[in-house]
């Protein structure tokens, strides 16, 4: 163990920031070559490298924390700040898409018929699958909070059950939303309605998939006894992210699905 007089973590040199940056380059240039020259090689390479980077970087963090004990209280505090700042940046990301939606829907252009939903658009019934989706995500918010409490109380089996239930609800949401996307009477190409709808709900869906994956990793780690009743920040970060995803959906549902119909 390094002889240091402070409680911070001086990280060992790592190649993953570089591979991450390279994958960003390959993915962006890959998108360009895909659209202009119809070849997916660069994009595929970039995505593979991204997945490898994420897997190995986060695996290293788990090694440094759970197995090597580098995550002292000040280190954990820094990680908490980091996660909060990241989620805040994501909130602003979604604010952009809500801005776009309200810009076009509050004063609908004459080309749309001067109304919202625009002429020719049959919106989805907010009281059908979208309402079920709302219930699913709200329930998953409850189950993830339940999971947190069971972890803090040191109860392994209830934690396994509640966390599994949360993941299942997340997967159920994704399946329902995928079906909705397939069955929808309008597409991304259907003017500003289709654009704002699918970009906003699409990015949300991507975040649901990310959040579900995060929680699945937490579930796996929990089965391997990584978490202690007092120190389980990986799980807390996942739960925070999941709550954020839930809140974004509530805004989507109220704005686009309900008011927007």
């Amino acid at each position, binding site marked *: 163990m390094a*002889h240091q007089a402070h409680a911070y973590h001086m990280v060992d040199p790592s190649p993953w920031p570089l591979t991450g940056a390279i994958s960003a380059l390959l993915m962006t240039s890959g998108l360009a070559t895909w659209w202009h020259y119809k070849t997916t090689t660069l994009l595929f390479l970039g995505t593979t490298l991204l997945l490898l980077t994420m897997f190995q970087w986060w695996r290293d963090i788990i090694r440094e924390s759970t197995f090597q004990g580098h995550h002292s209280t000040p280190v954990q505090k820094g990680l908490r700040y980091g996660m909060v700042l990241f989620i805040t940046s994501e909130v602003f990301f979604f604010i952009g898409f809500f801005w776009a939606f309200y810009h076009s829907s509050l004063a609908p252009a004459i080309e749309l018929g001067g109304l919202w939903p625009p002429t020719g658009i049959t919106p989805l019934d907010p009281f059908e699958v979208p309402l079920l989706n709302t219930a699913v995500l709200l329930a998953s918010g409850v189950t993830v909070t339940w999971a947190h409490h069971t972890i803090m109380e040191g109860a392994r*089996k209830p934690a396994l059950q509640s966390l599994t239930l949360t993941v299942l609800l997340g997967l159920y949401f994704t399946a329902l939303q995928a079906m909705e996307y397939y069955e929808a009477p309008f597409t991304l190409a259907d003017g500003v309605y289709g654009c704002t709808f699918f970009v906003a709900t699409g990015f949300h869906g991507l975040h649901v998939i990310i959040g579900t994956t995060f929680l699945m990793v937490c579930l796996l780690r929990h089965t391997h006894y990584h978490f202690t009743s007092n*120190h389980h920040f990986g799980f807390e970060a996942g739960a925070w992210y999941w709550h954020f995803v839930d809140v974004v959906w509530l805004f989507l549902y109220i704005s686009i699905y309900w008011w927007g119909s």
Partner: protein
Amino acid sequence: MAARLLLRSAFRAATTCRAVPVPALTRGVTTGGIPTDEEQATGLEKQVLKSMKEGKDPYSILKPKEYAGTKDDPHLVPSVTNKRIVGCVCEEDNTAVIWFWLHEGEAQRCPSCGSHYKLVPHELPH
């Protein structure tokens, strides 16, 4: 190392179920099975935990204690060697920090405000 740790925590987790006293507020269906920091912390985290329990703060996590800075109550400056740099903010909100080396031995005074500082040895767990 990880496998040993896992096996040890799994063994402890299996026995913890019976050993841990059930808190009054649990539902009582299934308790135990999740290790505590006590059982599973390792490395620096474990060092900090152990030291804190003994009332020590070797890694200076907590806010430094406040001293009057007088001759009888000098600022005690912990150091792992025999000297340490001190930055004295003589009065609150001063932007000019007075920097000087503090050596072991007799207390030294800040060249600007005259506060007393004394170097004390600081033990690091190894």
